[in-house]
């Protein structure tokens, strides 16, 4: 099946299928969403107006049998940061879209009335339907109802009430094979989908399959690639403990942001750790291992049950647990899991939202450690869109502005995630320079600063951090284009067979002859495309800085500050 561009105009409610322009042919995932947004969206437009476009793109290898290739990218101008944005997630959306022959789904315009719609995507194209029943409903009900309503087992991409209300922290959820949710979490892209008045997208590929130029070469490359992933010891720990294995090590390193970023260690760390979570899951008959998309060989997801053995949440990630846990001082994993489920159902970012709660706690809206209070406010205020709920749903920056708090951990108005940049300096460079606001996944220096993967660079010194962040951000932009889960990076950094096998997979899929340098150049060009959009939107190097308190408030236990000058940070872009 030849890949096409599926275009939907929500102003006049028309759809069309277009050939892929030559300039876009080598792109997929993030590379494609950023290329389309940069080419077609006015950088100064209002993110929630008709001029913004929402672009979905499976990765270059999505829809094939390549291991771990099920990530879907979503891009637009972000209502949270004002920058270009890409967020990606697992689930079955990428694989199903690719099998429809859809290289990118571009949603533009905006209805002139108050009606809501859904989209149905098949290999024949896109159909727009008016939607009434699901409006105002949570993501879990949408997934259940739409699955029952439509034939087969469609892929589903949906927004919750937060997206409908166009909250700046609203996410986009993707159904996984078991009816769980994976989130394109960051940057408020759910609000953009809500501004287009699209509640959900159902995807039915039927018998559609992805073309492979050289089947034998593809099979061999996939065998080598999957072996590199399975053999890497990080994969073992991820399968057993999930990403939450990080709570204890980041705490031990003195870099676990606690009590709204006032300490690097949390007294309750062991109660919310991956080790405790694993034992709790096993004792309650849950699943420590679970894959978010078919073909994942790492299986870092899990099913977390409540005390009665009933499923509470899945895809229970380190960053969400850190944010609700250490940052809000909640040391009860069940309260955190309940909040996680509510956030998934409302469709709101589980990093931005708890960081916003921690700022609200500092402001005295509720006490630190109040797990039931967080769940109550999520249900009664955020889900219902009260004034308080909309402030929290606007993200950490919105809470800080509303309540006059100065300790607000954001870069480009996006909440800083689970690693304090004072005690892990490399990640501070990533937060500052990322084209998309503070985001650990853009250049995960934790691998080398803390975990000893891809070498070792002392987290507390400045030497080598800019170069480390630069190399990782370039590599990540390329990986985010393949549809691969970022967790292949651990094997790619340590195992010399991994990256060549990945390049072989791409070449076998498309009949190309790319080499390693091509992949590096792809990563560089994506970063430069994204940065050019941001500059045209009005951003300057002065925006590539951390909030003031990171430079002035020493973080215990190491009592360190972030001490890179602006000039030093700006050398990041020397490539």
């Amino acid at each position, binding site marked *: 099946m030849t890949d096409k561009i599926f275009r939907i105009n929500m102003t006049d409610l028309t759809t069309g299928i277009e050939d892929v322009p030559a300039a876009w042919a080598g792109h997929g995932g993030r590379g494609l969403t950023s290329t389309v947004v940069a080419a077609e969206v006015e950088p100064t437009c209002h993110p929630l107006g008709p001029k913004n476009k929402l672009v979905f793109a499976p990765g270059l290898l999505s829809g094939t049998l390549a291991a771990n290739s099920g990530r879907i990218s979503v891009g637009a101008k972000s209502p949270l940061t004002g920058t270009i944005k890409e967020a990606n997630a697992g689930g079955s959306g990428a694989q199903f879209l690719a099998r429809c022959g859809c290289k990118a789904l571009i949603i533009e315009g905006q209805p002139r009335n108050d009606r809501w719609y859904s989209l149905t995507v098949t290999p024949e194209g896109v159909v727009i339907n008016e939607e009434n029943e699901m409006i105002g409903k949570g993501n879990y009900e949408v997934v259940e109802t739409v699955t029952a309503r439509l034939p087969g087992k469609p892929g589903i991409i949906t927004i919750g009430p937060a997206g409908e209300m166009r909250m700046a922290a609203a996410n986009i959820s993707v159904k996984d094979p078991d009816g769980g949710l994976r989130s394109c979490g960051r940057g408020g892209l759910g609000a953009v989908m809500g501004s287009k008045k699209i509640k959900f997208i159902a995807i039915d590929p039927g018998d559609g399959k992805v073309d492979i130029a050289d089947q034998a070469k593809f099979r061999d490359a996939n065998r080598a690639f999957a072996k590199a992933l399975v053999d890497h010891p*990080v994969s073992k720990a991820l399968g057993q*403990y999930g990403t939450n*294995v990080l709570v204890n090590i980041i705490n031990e*390193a003195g870099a676990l942001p606690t009590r709204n970023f006032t300490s690097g260690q949390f007294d309750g760390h062991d109660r919310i750790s991956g080790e405790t979570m694993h034992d709790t899951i096993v004792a309650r008959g849950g699943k420590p291992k679970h894959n978010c998309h078919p073909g994942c060989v790492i299986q870092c997801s899990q099913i977390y049950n409540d005390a009665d053995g009933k499923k509470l949440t899945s895809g229970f990630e380190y960053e969400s647990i850190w944010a609700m846990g250490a940052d809000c001082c909640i040391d009860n994993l069940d309260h955190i899991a309940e909040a996680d489920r509510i956030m998934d159902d409302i469709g709101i970012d589980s990093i931005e939202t708890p960081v916003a709660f921690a700022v609200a706690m500092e402001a005295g809206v509720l006490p630190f450690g109040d797990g039931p209070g967080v769940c109550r406010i999520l249900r009664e205020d955020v889900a219902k869109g009260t004034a308080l709920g909309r402030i929290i749903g606007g993200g950490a920056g919105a809470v800080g502005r509303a309540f006059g708090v100065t300790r607000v951990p954001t870069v480009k108005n996006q909440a800083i995630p689970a690693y304090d940049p004072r005690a892990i300096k490399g990640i501070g460079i990533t937060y500052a320079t990322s084209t998309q606001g503070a985001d650990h996944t853009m250049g995960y220096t934790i*691998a080398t600063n*803390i975990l000893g993967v891809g070498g070792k660079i002392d987290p507390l010194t400045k030497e080598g951090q800019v170069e480390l962040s630069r190399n990782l951000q370039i590599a990540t932009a390329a990986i985010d284009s393949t549809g691969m889960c970022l967790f292949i990076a651990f094997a790619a950094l340590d195992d010399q067979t991994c990256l060549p096998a990945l390049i072989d997979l791409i070449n076998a899929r498309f009949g190309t002859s790319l080499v390693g340098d091509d992949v590096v150049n792809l990563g560089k060009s994506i970063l430069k495309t994204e940065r050019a959009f941001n500059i045209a939107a009005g951003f300057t190097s002065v925006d590539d800085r951390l909030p003031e308190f990171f430079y002035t408030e020493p973080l215990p236990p190491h009592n360190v500050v972030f001490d890179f000058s602006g000039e030093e940070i700006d050398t990041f872009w020397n490539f």
Partner: protein
Amino acid sequence: MQVTVKLFAFFRDGRFKEEGREYPAGTVVGDVVDELGIGRDEVGVVMINSLQRSLESPIGDGDVVAIFPVIGGG
């Protein structure tokens, strides 16, 4: 000398989470790893008093030694 040893992830299986232990002067982290029956090639990260250290690093009285397998996430 008295040393607090912390173990993480599957290193805890059949061992302990945190224990005060006695070691002779001149002990290095690798000696502790060997004594606990952990393969040196299984060790991903060691910290002494929250600072990144190696298997060759010497341990002092009152130190907190944390030993992790190769782990990742994010």
